[in-house]
C-alpha cells in the first residue's frame, strides 16, 4: 500500500486518540492520586469534561477536515459530517460528566467516566465509519459501555434490570443487523459503504433482497435511535438507569444512530430512496404516535421523557424520510437542539429526584415557588421539546416539516403536526405542575453543585441560542449535509 501514513490519516482520528488517552489517564488518576472518595467526587467530573473540551478545541483547531477523504484503507471517512457529529457527541459527554457529578453513586467512580469516554469514542467512530466492519465494531464499542452504565447502580434492582434489558435488546438487534451486513457482503463482495452503491447499480443485489437487507439493518439502527417498533427498551431503561446516563442515552446515543442512518441510507442506498423513504416514513409515524400517546399516561418524569424521546425520534425521521438535503440538514439541526434540550430536562429531573426522592411528575410541584430559576430552565426545556419559540425545538421542528413539505409528503406533515399538538399537551402539563400546584415536601436538602449549575446554564443558553441565533448552527448542519451528500 502506497502512502501508508499520510497526515490526514492521523488527523482523522485525533479526537479518538484524545479520548483514549483521556480514558487511560482517568483510570490512572483514579487509582493513584485521588484516593479519597470526596476528592474523586470533586474532580472526576471536571477532569473528564475539561479533557473532552480540550480535545474538541484541539480537533477544531488542527483536525478540521477541509476536504472529504477516505482514510485507513477506506475504513473511515474524514469529512465535515463526521466532524460535526463528533462535536455533538463530545458536547453530550462534557455535559453528562458535569451532570453526573451531582449523582451520588456515579460521582466518585472513575470507571463510570472511563465508560462514558469509551462509549463516546465508539460514537465518534460510528459517525465516520465508511465500512460495515468498522461500523459494527463502532456500534458495539458504543453500546457495551452503555449497557454497563445503565446497570451501574448494582444495588438498585431497577437499574440492574435496565442494564440487562438494554443488553438483551441490543444484542438481538445487533445480531439481526449483522445478518443484514452479511447478506450485503455475500451479494456484493464488499463491505465498503462507498463501493456498495456501485455494486448495487451493477445489479448484484436483486431489489427484493435489497429491501430485506435494508429492513434487517434498520432493526439495528432503529434500536439505537429508539424508533418504534424497536422502542420497548427505552422507558424501562431510562427509568432504571442513573438519570445522567438516561440523558446521555437519549441524546448522544440517539444522535449516533441518526448519523449512521443518514450516511448509510444516503451513501449506499441512494438509488433505492423511493421505497426506503416510505419505510422510514412509516417508522416515523409509528414512533410519533406510540411515543406521544403513551407519554400521555405517564406519571414518572423519566418515563415521560422516554416516550417523548421516542416521539422526537419520529419527528427526526420525517427529515430522514424526506431524503433531501434540506431533510438531512433538518435532522442534524434537530439533533443539536435536542441534545441541549433533553440534557437540561434530565439534569433538572436528577436534582429534583435527589431532593424529593422520587421521579414522579408531581415531585416537581411548586418548583416555581421554591426556585424560580430551575422552573424557568424546565420551562425552556419543555417548550423546546414542544416546539415553541424562542426555544431551539421550534426551528428544528419547522425544518423537518419544511423538508417534508418540499418533497410533497403532506400526509406525513399532517400526522406530524397533529402529534406535535398531542406532545404539547403533556409538556404543558409538566409546566402546570411546576407553576400551579402547591410545593411538595423535600426530604433532603441537596445543594446543586457548581458543575451541575454550569452544565444546566450551558444547556439553557444552548436552547435559547439554537432557538434564535440560527446562522451558525444552520451552517454547521449544512456543512454536515454537504459532506454526506457529496461523494
Amino acid at each position: 500500500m502506497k502512502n501508508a501514513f499520510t497526515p490526514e490519516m492521523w488527523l482523522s482520528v485525533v479526537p479518538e486518540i484524545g479520548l483514549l488517552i483521556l480514558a487511560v489517564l482517568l483510570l490512572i488518576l483514579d487509582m493513584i492520586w485521588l484516593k479519597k472518595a470526596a476528592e474523586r467526587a470533586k474532580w472526576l467530573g471536571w477532569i473528564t469534561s475539561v479533557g473532552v473540551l480540550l480535545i474538541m478545541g484541539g480537533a477544531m483547531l488542527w483536525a478540521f477536515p477541509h476536504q472529504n477523504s477516505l482514510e485507513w484503507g477506506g475504513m473511515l471517512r474524514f469529512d465535515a459530517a463526521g466532524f460535526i457529529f463528533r462535536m455533538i457527541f463530545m458536547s453530550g459527554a462534557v455535559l453528562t460528566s458535569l451532570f453526573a457529578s451531582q449523582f451520588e453513586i456515579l460521582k466518585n467512580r472513575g470507571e463510570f467516566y472511563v465508560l462514558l469516554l469509551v462509549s463516546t469514542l465508539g460514537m465518534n467512530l460510528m459517525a465516520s465509519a465508511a465500512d460495515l466492519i468498522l461500523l459494527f465494531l463502532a456500534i458495539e464499542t458504543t453500546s457495551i459501555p452503555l449497557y454497563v452504565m445503565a446497570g451501574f447502580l448494582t444495588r438498585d434492582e431497577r437499574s440492574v434490570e435496565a442494564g440487562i434489558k438494554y443488553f438483551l435488546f441490543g444484542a438481538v438487534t445487533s445480531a439481526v443487523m449483522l445478518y443484514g451486513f452479511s447478506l450485503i457482503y455475500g451479494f456484493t463482495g464488499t463491505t465498503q459503504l462507498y463501493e456498495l452503491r456501485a455494486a448495487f447499480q451493477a445489479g448484484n443485489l436483486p431489489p427484493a433482497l435489497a429491501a430485506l437487507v435494508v429492513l434487517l439493518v434498520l432493526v439495528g439502527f432503529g434500536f439505537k435511535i429508539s424508533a418504534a417498533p424497536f422502542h420497548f427498551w427505552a422507558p424501562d431503561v431510562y427509568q432504571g438507569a442513573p438519570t445522567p446516563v438516561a440523558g446521555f442515552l437519549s441524546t448522544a446515543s440517539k444522535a449516533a444512530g441518526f448519523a449512521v442512518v443518514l450516511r448509510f441510507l444516503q451513501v449506499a442506498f441512494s438509488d433505492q430512496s423511493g421505497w426506503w423513504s416510505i419505510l422510514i416514513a412509516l417508522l416515523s409515524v409509528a414512533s410519533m404516535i406510540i411515543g406521544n400517546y403513551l407519554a400521555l399516561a405517564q406519571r414518572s418524569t423519566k418515563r415521560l421523557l422516554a416516550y417523548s424521546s421516542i416521539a422526537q425520534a419520529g419527528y427526526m425521521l420525517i427529515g430522514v424520510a424526506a431524503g433531501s438535503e434540506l431533510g438531512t440538514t433538518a435532522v442534524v439541526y434537530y439533533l443539536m437542539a435536542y441534545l441541549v434540550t433533553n440534557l437540561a430536562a434530565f439534569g433538572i429531573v436528577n436534582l429534583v429526584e435527589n431532593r424529593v426522592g422520587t421521579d414522579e411528575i408531581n415531585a416537581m410541584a411548586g418548583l416555581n415557588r421554591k426556585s424560580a430559576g430551575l422552573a424557568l430552565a424546565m420551562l425552556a426545556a419543555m417548550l423546546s421539546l414542544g416546539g415553541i419559540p424562542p426555544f431551539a425545538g421550534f426551528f428544528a421542528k419547522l425544518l423537518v416539516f419544511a423538508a417534508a413539505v418540499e418533497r410533497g409528503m403532506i400526509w406525513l406533515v399532517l400526522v406530524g403536526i397533529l402529534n406535535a399538538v398531542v406532545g404539547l399537551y403533556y409538556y404543558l402539563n409538566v409546566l402546570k405542575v411546576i407553576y400551579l400546584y402547591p410545593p411538595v415536601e423535600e426530604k433532603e436538602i441537596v445543594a446543586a453543585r457548581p458543575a451541575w449549575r454550569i452544565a444546566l446554564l450551558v444547556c439553557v443558553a444552548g436552547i435559547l441560542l439554537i432557538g434564535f441565533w440560527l446562522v451558525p448552527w444552520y451552517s454547521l448542519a449544512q456543512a454536515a449535509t454537504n459532506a454526506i451528500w457529496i461523494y
Partner: protein
Amino acid sequence: MQFPILTTLIFTPIITGIILLLMPAEQKEWIRRVALAAASVILLLSLFLYFSYDVGRGGYQFVESAAWLPQLGIGYHLGVDGISLPLVLLAGLVIFSGVLVSWNVEDRPREFFSFLMFLGASVLGVFCALDLFLLFFFFELAVFPKYLMIVVWGYPKTREYGGMKLTLYLFIGSVIALVGTLAIYFGSGLRTFDLLALEQAGFPLEFQRLWFPFVFLGFAILGGIFPFHSWAPDGHVAAPTAISMLLAGVEMKVGAFAALRVAIQLLPEGAQYWAPAVLFLATINVVYGAFIAMVQTDFKYVIGFSSVSHMGLVLIGFATLNRDGLIGASMQMFSHGVMTALFFAVVGMVYDRAHTREIGSLGGLVQKMPWAAVGFIIGGLVSMGMPGFSGFVSEFPVFMGAWQKAPLVAVVAILGILITAAYIFLVVRRVFFGEIPAELDKSVGDVSRKDKLVIALLSLVMILLGWFPSLLTRLIEPGVQSILALMGGGR
C-alpha cells in the same frame, strides 16, 4: 438609517420581561412599577407611530430589514401599514390598561407581569412582521404566557380546562397555517419568507385554491371562526382579567390580522374562490354567538360569546373583499378590541368585589361602582352599533360591504346586532340596576383610581372614534387600497 423604532417597540416588553424575572420576588411594588413604566413606553411609542405615519405616502413605513438566516431566505423584516398600525395602537392601549387593572395581583406578580410582557411582545411582533417566519416566530411565542397565565392566575374552577383548551386549539390552528405557509414558501420558488416578495409571486390558481383554506382557517381559529370558536369563551372566562382583555382584545385580532395578511394578501384568488364559504361561517358566528351570549348566566361568558359574535363581523368584512367591507373589518378589529377589553375589565372589577359572576345574584351595582356601570354601558352601546360610538362607524361599513356582495348576509348579520342589543340591555339591567342584594350592599366598594383611569381611557377612545372615524380611516383607507390592488385593482 433611521432609529429602529419598531424593534424598540417589540423589544421593550421582551427586555422588561427578562428584567422582571431577574428581580427579587418580594419587591412586588417595584415589579409593578417597572411593568407600568414599560407599558407606558409601549403606549407612547405606539402613539408616536400613529402620529408620525405618513398617510400621504402610504404603504409600509418604519421598515427595518436585516438578514436572519439567508440560506433559507429568512429575514428580520419589520414594517407597519395602515392596517397594522391601528392594531399596534390597540395593543399599546390594552397592554397599558392590562397592567393597571392587574395592580392587585398578589400571587407571584413577578412572573405575572413578566409573562404579560412576553404576550405583549408576541402580539406587537405579529403586527409588525413583514417576514412569514418572523410572523410565526412571534405568533407562537404567545403559547406559553397564554397557557401559564390562565392556568396559574385564572378562575380556579375552570382554569386548567380552559387554559389547555385555548392553548391546544390555537396551536392546532397555527400549525395548520404553518403547513400552508411552508407550501407557499416552496410553491413560490423564490426561496424567501419575505411577505412583500411573496405577494408578487403570482401563484397559479389551483395552488391558491388548494392552500387558502389551510392558511386562512389556521389563523382564523385564533380569530374565533365558527365552528372552531369554543376555545374563546372557555379560555377568556378562565383567564385572569388582564389576560382576558389581551386575549379577546388583541390576540383574536392577531388571528384575524394574520389571516388577512398571509392568506388573503398572498393568495387573493384563493380568497375570492373561498369567500362564500367564509361569509357563511362568519354569518353563523355573528348570529350564533349572539344567541348563545343571550342565554348565559355567567356575566363573563356573555362577554366571551359576544366576542365570537363580533369577530364574525370582522371575518364578514374580510370575505366581502371590497373596499367598504375591508375598511369596516379593520375598524371593527380596533373598535372591538377596545370595547371587549373594557368589558372584561369591568367584569373583572365586579368579580373582584362581588366574588360572583352569576347574573342572577348581582344587581344594583350602579350605586356602588358608578364608573364601572358607565363604562359597561358605553361598551354596550359600542357593541350594539349605536351612532356616536366606534361600533357604528365600524359595523356600518361591514354591512355596506356585505350588502354589495350578498344582501342576505347583511340582513342576517344585522339581525345578530339586534340580539346583541337585547342581551346587552338584559345584562345592564340585571347587573347594574334593580335591587342590590343585601350581602353585596355591605361588601362591595367602588373601583380604584387606576380602574377609573382604564375605564375613562378606553371609553374616551371609543367615543372619540365614534365622532371622528377619520382618525383611523385615514390610515386604513390606503392600507385597504393596496390589498385591493393585489386583487387586480377591483373596487
